[in-house]
């Protein structure tokens, strides 16, 4: 009887399987202080009693990540991405707020947490420059208290998965950037971490190396259920790797939504391609809210600003101006959407 009186949502809540939260961040802030030079003040005063400026690199952000999710944590330069990742991985102490990664507090459980997470910093190498990759992998194995047999097995596994065998015996300093990055990720996965934090892992890589790294990360995520938390400026990383995107700007969390919904939800512009029956001869001035993206004899691409003109009106106007055989209307790419979100803030 009592059960029958419970509201439907409460009953559902009891029976629904609880999603395992890997990362829970609440009201997280980080403040940095640094001296600044005051204009018009003597150098001695600037040296001895400089003005101290406080900057909130991260300002009261809250979010959570579920086990197995692939999350892109993006934002423009200086947005607070790296600072957040460093707080999540015990590198920096937060000024305020709470963090739980796999149920552990990074500020007090640094060592315990390190056994459960992996990290890759695109600008930092964790490998021995003078030794072959296998030595670095073995080093990580010993660091994570793995037995000799476990280390040997895992090195073989990762070398196969990341295709390291062809250059496994070369000193790391002689590897290409793409090869080194694959080795970096492999090293961070030695101990089968439950979460892997990647800070710009594809920085400086060519398109092939980027694709190969992204594919590997998806594979690891599928096969080992490793949660991926990634920061990147590369839209390709976000599109092909992450099923969720969190956008941060000036330390504040701006958007948090599935990556697929990004282009659908934040459409500020539409593209219209016009194909002529023979060839376009002239390119007249376009109505307000429409501009040329490309002008070609065989195809014109225009950009429609949806704040100023609707697609319907734009199409009507364009068809009045040009004689066309075919028309194609499509959304802006993710990069443009993200740029707009950054600029709006």
């Amino acid at each position, binding site marked *: 009887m009592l059960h029958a009186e419970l509201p439907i949502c409460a009953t559902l809540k009891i029976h629904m399987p609880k999603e395992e939260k890997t990362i829970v961040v609440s009201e997280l802030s980080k403040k*940095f202080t640094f001296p600044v030079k005051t204009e018009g003040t003597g150098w001695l005063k600037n040296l001895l009693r400089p003005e101290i400026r406080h900057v909130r690199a991260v300002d009261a952000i809250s979010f959570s990540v579920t086990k197995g999710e692939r999350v892109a944590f993006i934002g423009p330069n200086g947005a607070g991405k*790296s600072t957040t990742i*460093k707080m999540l*991985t*015990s*590198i*920096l*102490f937060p000024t305020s707020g709470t963090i739980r990664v796999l149920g552990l507090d990074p500020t007090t459980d*640094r*060592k*315990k947490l*390190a*056994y459960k997470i992996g*990290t890759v*910093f695109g*600008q*930092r*190498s*964790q*490998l*021995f*420059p*003078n*030794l072959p990759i296998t*030595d*670095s992998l073995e*080093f990580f194995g*010993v*660091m*994570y*208290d793995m037995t000799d047999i476990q280390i040997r097995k895992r090195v073989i596994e990762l070398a196969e998965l990341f295709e390291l065998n062809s250059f496994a015996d070369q*000193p790391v*300093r002689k590897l290409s950037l793409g090869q080194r990055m694959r080795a970096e990720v492999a090293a961070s996965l030695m101990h089968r971490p439950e979460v892997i934090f990647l800070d710009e892992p594809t920085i400086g890589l060519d398109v092939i190396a980027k694709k190969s790294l992204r594919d590997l990360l998806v594979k690891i995520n599928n096969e080992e259920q490793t949660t991926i938390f990634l920061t990147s400026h590369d839209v390709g990383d976000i599109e092909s790797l992450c099923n969720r995107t969190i956008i941060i700007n000036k330390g504040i969390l701006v958007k948090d939504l599935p990556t697929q919904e990004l282009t659908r939800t934040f459409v500020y512009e539409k593209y219209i391609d016009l194909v002529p029956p023979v060839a376009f001869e002239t390119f007249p001035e376009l109505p307000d809210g429409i501009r040329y993206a490309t002008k070609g004899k065989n195809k014109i691409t225009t950009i429609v600003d949806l704040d100023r003109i609707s697609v319907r009106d734009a199409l009507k106007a364009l068809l009045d101006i040009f004689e066309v055989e075919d028309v194609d209307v499509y959304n802006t790419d993710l990069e443009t959407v993200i740029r707009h979100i950054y600029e709006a803030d």
Partner: protein
Amino acid sequence: MINELYFALYAIKKNVQSNAELRTSFIANIIGMMINNTSFLIIWIFFIRSVGIINGWTAADILGLQGFSALCFGIVFSAGGGIRHTAEYVSSGSFDRFLLSPKNLLLRLATSSFGVSAVGDMLFGVACLAIYATLLHTTPYQVAFICVLVILSTMVFLAAVVTVYSASFLFVDSNTVVDGLFELFLTPALFHGGAFRGGMRFIFTFVIPSLLIGTLPVEAVRNASLEKLLLITLLSFAWLLISFKLFYAGVRKYESSNFMTFGS
């Protein structure tokens, strides 16, 4: 604890292997440092021959002093060569990787680099102490004293180095200041022990622990003085404790950075 020590030894082994890959520089560094130390010792021996014994300090004592100092310098800066790079790690942000490691932070930092030239100091120190023990016609009791004192002076040396290099966390580009502070500690430690009397002796024992490295150990061995041994023991443990506290207080001030870095 066993895992920590096993990993520390393993890290040292890997660093040695990594350095040994550059064979010529590896050997040249060791020999170069031994030549450097020998020339320093020769200057002191000539000094004593021309000036004579000062406050009971003979040429053999100077040999002992150089032996203790070089040996603890060699042990700390070879196996724990990473400490010397603290300022560089902090300013470049590569200290991050130690915080990401599941091991003891200080041990991980110390064993992150192997000081090849310090092996030369270590070998020189052993040679000096062996000659010193022979010249002194030491009893087995005094030999045991030397062994215990090597451990204690290494502890003090480690504590001093950790304390000095912890200053790296306080401000950016601290290399010059940290190196200056280290010289302030090291120079008196290598100086003629007989020169320190009264206030100077007090300062360089209790405020800056330079005399605990070589001067007091040599005097303790010479007189088989248990009082001096006890004093060095107490001070070495106290300094070690203080240095660890200062190091971890410094780590809390670490702010990281995003420079490109390399190495495990």
